């Protein structure tokens, strides 16, 4: 009996850990900790999705920022991809791009309940970006060029002690 259980468990782990396990999927409660971290870094949080062309276009800039400010900045990319497309779109995309920034996934269908908690200016269009440190935060309902993003991040980095 136990043997069967173990067998089932092991086969489950082998078969089902490959793809879905690579994604960190949260509801809004699970995401919140990433929106108010209290470390000494500057946190750059970008909401995006593989289906959002302007989001995909600016992703390399966020990657570059993570490289350029390794010591001081933590980039967090929050994907809003549909659960039905994790396997077909999101995972292949992440595998292809090999992003070095942290990627987490927000799956919380009751959007009206959490959009305002992220920022009162946000009407729900993406991309949007949140930059914050211990002292202050700024919300950007816009797309970024590398230069524009870098200059905003610099403002925060220079403020940090």
């Amino acid at each position: 009996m136990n043997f069967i259980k173990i067998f089932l468990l092991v086969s489950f782990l082998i078969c089902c850990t490959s793809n879905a396990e690579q994604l960190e999927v949260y509801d809004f409660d699970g995401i919140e900790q990433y929106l108010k971290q209290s470390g000494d870094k500057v946190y750059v949080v970008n909401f995006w999705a593989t289906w959002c062309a302007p989001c995909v276009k600016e992703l390399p800039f966020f990657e570059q920022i993570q490289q350029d400010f390794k010591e001081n900045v933590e980039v967090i990319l929050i994907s809003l991809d549909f659960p039905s497309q994790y396997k077909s779109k999101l995972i292949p995309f992440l595998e292809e791009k090999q992003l070095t920034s942290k990627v987490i996934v927000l799956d919380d269908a009751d959007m009206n309940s959490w959009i305002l908690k992220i920022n009162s200016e946000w009407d729900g269009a993406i991309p949007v970006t949140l930059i914050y440190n211990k002292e202050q935060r700024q919300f950007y309902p816009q797309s970024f060029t590398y230069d524009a993003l870098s200059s905003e991040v610099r403002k925060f980095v220079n403020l940090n002690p």
Partner: protein
Amino acid sequence: MNKLKLLLFTMFFATAISAQKGYDIGALAADFNLENIDGSFVSLSDFNESKGFIVVFTCNTCPYAVAYEDRIEALNKKYSKKGYPVIAIMPNNTEIKPGDSLDAMRKRANKKEFTFPYLIDKEQAVFPQYGATKTPHVYVLQKNNETHVVRYIGAIDDNYKDANKVVLKYVEDAVDALLMNREVPVSKTRAIGCSIKI
């Protein structure tokens, strides 16, 4: 005197803000004259019998809009006969989104057997007036004499993923309330959508 100044100041800012952000609840929505997928041109004033409208900015190419297609059609089936027809408007720049061309809109509408007008905002002049920023983005308008008063702005319901798991049907609740001469219970909601391509 100071009060007057303050009032003028406030009015100035209120106007500046509304000009920038489109309509808020209670605003009077402008009529339009936009091309439908059948080649005709459609205005709100064409609908003599209606009590109002469910204006939906939507498109073919946004996955959220696609997720809501059947529910938009269901809204029209349910409410056009009650005096609140759906008017769908595609706001995207079709050079950026060729999948939203008038031809593509026609194909999609035929395939899905849409029974509502599916108009194209070719000049991209209507959606900024309304303040729509994404697809889908709904405005429920109530007719008042010749004007159209904005009564609801936002999402269709609270679960884009699964129509069966919807708890709050924001648009239906708004229209039902208007049909009963009641206050709209939730007049503004927010949802993730695809930004309108300009």
